């Protein structure tokens, strides 16, 4: 028996990528390094705020359209 309930590969990779990006953002270099007057921590967080919703939304919409086509195939 596997220890965990299965998660889709795409979801798993997305969660891991988010966590890795977050982790990298909090490494000490990101606090001291600056670009355009703001520490890299700030820029990385802003990037995370833009990227994570956008990618997640694209994934969910893709999933919905795949489900819809599957339903059409079954009904057709």
């Amino acid at each position: 028996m596997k220890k965990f309930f299965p998660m889709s590969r795409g979801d798993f990779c997305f969660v891991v990528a988010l966590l890795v990006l977050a982790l990298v953002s909090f490494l000490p270099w990101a606090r001291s390094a600056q670009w355009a007057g703001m520490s890299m921590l700030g820029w990385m967080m802003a990037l995370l705020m833009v990227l994570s919703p956008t990618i997640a939304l694209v994934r969910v919409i893709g999933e919905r359209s795949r489900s819809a086509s599957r339903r059409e195939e079954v009904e057709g």
Partner: protein
Amino acid sequence: MIERILVAAYLVVCILIGILLSRRVLSSRDEYWVAGRRIGPWVNAMAIMAALASGGSIVGVMGYAYEAGIPATLALFAGAVVGFPLASILVARPLRRFGKFTITDFLSWRYPHPIVRIGVPILIVVSFTMYIVAQMKAAGITAEALLGIPYNTSLTLATLVFVLYVSVGGMLAITWTDVIQGTLMVVVVLGTAMLLMARNGSPVEIFEAGIQAAPALGAAGERSLATDLGAFVIWAAAIPIIPHVVMRVYTARNASDARLSLNLAMILYAVVILAAVMVIVPVGKVLFPTLGDSDQIFLKIMESQFNPVIRGLAVAAVLAAVMSTTDALLLACSSAIAHDLVANVWGRNLSSRAISRINIVVVWIVGLIAMALAYSPPELITGYYTDAIGALSAGLFVPVIGGLWWKRANLTGGIAAFVVGVAVYAALVLLPDVPKRAGILIALPASAAAMWLAALLGKTETPKMIEAVERLHGDN
């Protein structure tokens, strides 16, 4: 005068929605707590965004950025944004399929024990009461600064209005008032940012001017790394388990709609926060470099830069932000007491109408207690309510995620994770030498370790329960 008329009109609309919907929702628990489970993704997204984007997200986010700098603020609010995909992937589908009313329903089913059935609702009520106090401060200082109504009077008026419409209108009233409130928030924050850009130049020019006037705005600052990381983790872990967001998952028509609405909400939320922090705050720092109360920055900008109509809209937007969160928090508190404690623990045979009456009383009691506490408000609201939410993250994240995804999660593991998470977090918050909000960085691993150890020592979970959880995942 115009400001007061605009705000009064807005408040009357909210009350009317509550009263008009009361007849329909008070007859059924499904209608009252989860709006009949038929809210579409766009409406639900706006309602989720409005519920999360509190007074903290308009008044507080700017106050926090003004005080602690932009990187620390983005670290805190990015946590919430990252929490949405986590919620969408980790909990939206299985919890929507579970199909009850509250997060306690799931935890009590997964870990059937009085510690969970009683402890979780109490934790929710305590934590959310603190959250509501912070929202009320935002309402009070806004009405005082922009309408000239004394803090205590405006606090009392605002409390009476939203307690009234939540107590009679339930989730359906909250959903529709949240849609109005969310729209108002987005329009006012983005509109203010655009008007400031029209007067002061492009976002890059505004940002550079702000940084030049106050270099500390862009610096990571003197706070410890643990404080920034702690704030991020508190919110990232809170969104998948925070009751007023989870209840929104239950209101969706199906699991797919729930996921879509969470992700749409996240985009709106990110846009509002980024506009506030990257455009409005730098302008405020140039205009008002030495404010005593940082939470006043948005109000000072509105007062000095805009005409009475825009100021009236701004007050309505801040009240909307406060009310849209507070109403959801009040409903979550009332469900924790009326549904989780009174109905499920003490009296299973109560009718829907009896539960609704208890619920109305609970909303009034919690609202009035929070109002009494808000007469002596906390200094910086964002930090205050983040600490309160940390207790929920520490106590509920591991039992919920473990219960949904780990096949070895069992009763002893769930209880241990809940108790250890809350106890360690509370102890660390009370210790004077621990950096603010860093307690979660120890409490969460401690909760996970407790679950793992207790699960190994306790009885193996029954195949029936494992099959039932498997059904919640469906064809993942």
